């Protein structure tokens, strides 16, 4: 039988990107500012979300999508705060994708949410490749992890809108050089915003909250599409 060569040129992750674009359109229509939060396991994603729920009370109505390999420990903590939350468990999975977010959106009271946090699976590699339909990408780097994270995982930092340096209350006990960290991040990504924060002491949280409020306002003020 004759062998033919067929040219395809199709993006392997194109299906995810199309679905992500659909999610984004839906979130735009609903005027829900959506933040994809990524970090290594243990950098403090959940604690930061819990702080935001408390700190933004009366200003923005928060909703949360929790991505984890197993358990609903994180979702339970969010639920206790009286905030709508969907837990996505992906046993053995290393990232969330746009399809999972679509199902999660179907299970959230979107009319009651101004700000949606998506807590991605703790991992500094795969989540960078999967657009979820979010508006902004936020990366957490905790001080005990060391100041070399942007040098070791450059790709992740090239696409962040905000980098939160967490657990800065521990700085006096660590060799973390803030300058070295800053240089690594801004070299890859000159437009990024870097906020040093601590949920323990509250340091820097106001700045981070103001940024979120400004972004949400901007989204609300966008003219509706005809």
């Amino acid at each position: 039988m004759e062998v033919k060569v067929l040219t395809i040129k199709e993006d392997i992750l194109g299906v995810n990107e199309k679905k992500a674009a659909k999610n984004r359109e839906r979130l735009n229509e609903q005027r829900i500012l959506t933040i994809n939060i990524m970090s290594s396991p243990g950098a403090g994603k959940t604690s930061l979300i819990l702080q935001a729920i408390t700190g933004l009370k009366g200003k923005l109505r928060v909703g949360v999508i929790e991505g984890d390999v197993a358990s609903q420990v994180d979702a339970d903590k969010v639920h206790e705060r009286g905030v709508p939350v969907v837990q996505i468990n992906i046993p053995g999975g290393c990232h969330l994708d746009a399809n999972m977010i679509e199902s999660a959106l179907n299970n959230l009271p979107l009319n009651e949410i101004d700000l949606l946090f998506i807590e991605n699976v703790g991992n500094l590699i795969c989540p960078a490749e999967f657009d979820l339909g979010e508006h902004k990408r936020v990366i957490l780097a905790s001080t005990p992890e060391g100041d070399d994270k942007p040098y070791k995982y450059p790709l992740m930092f090239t696409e962040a809108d905000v980098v939160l340096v967490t657990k800065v209350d521990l700085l006096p006990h660590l060799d973390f050089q803030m300058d070295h960290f800053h240089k690594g991040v801004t070299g890859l990504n000159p437009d990024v915003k870097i906020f040093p924060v601590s949920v323990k002491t509250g340091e820097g949280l106001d700045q981070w909250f103001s940024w979120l409020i400004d972004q949400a306002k901007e989204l609300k003020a966008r003219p509706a599409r005809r």
Partner: protein
Amino acid sequence: MHELPVTMSILSIVLEQAKTVQASRIKSISLKIGELSGVVPEYVETQFEFLSKDTIAAGAALVFNQPPARLRCRVCASVFSPNGQNWVCPNCHDRNIEIVSGRECFVESMEIE
């Protein structure tokens, strides 16, 4: 690290294309997988073998074209391939770096019968 959805997507792309041209067998698949795509070809091969078992793509050879990472220094404009994960300009030693290429993740073509 995230090869499974990548492999599943490769398979569904080639099967769909094969269907539209009524191919009876897929003999080989050419993939362009950049160094920065985070996709490990060996994993894709193992998974593909398993996933394609009962399809017309079973036994297809996967041909990987792997463009290296190319970076540009924003200070002196040198374009270079990095030494592993250490992204520093070999010319002026600055770390003000942007990605030129290496993130490709495409099905380029396939051989069919």
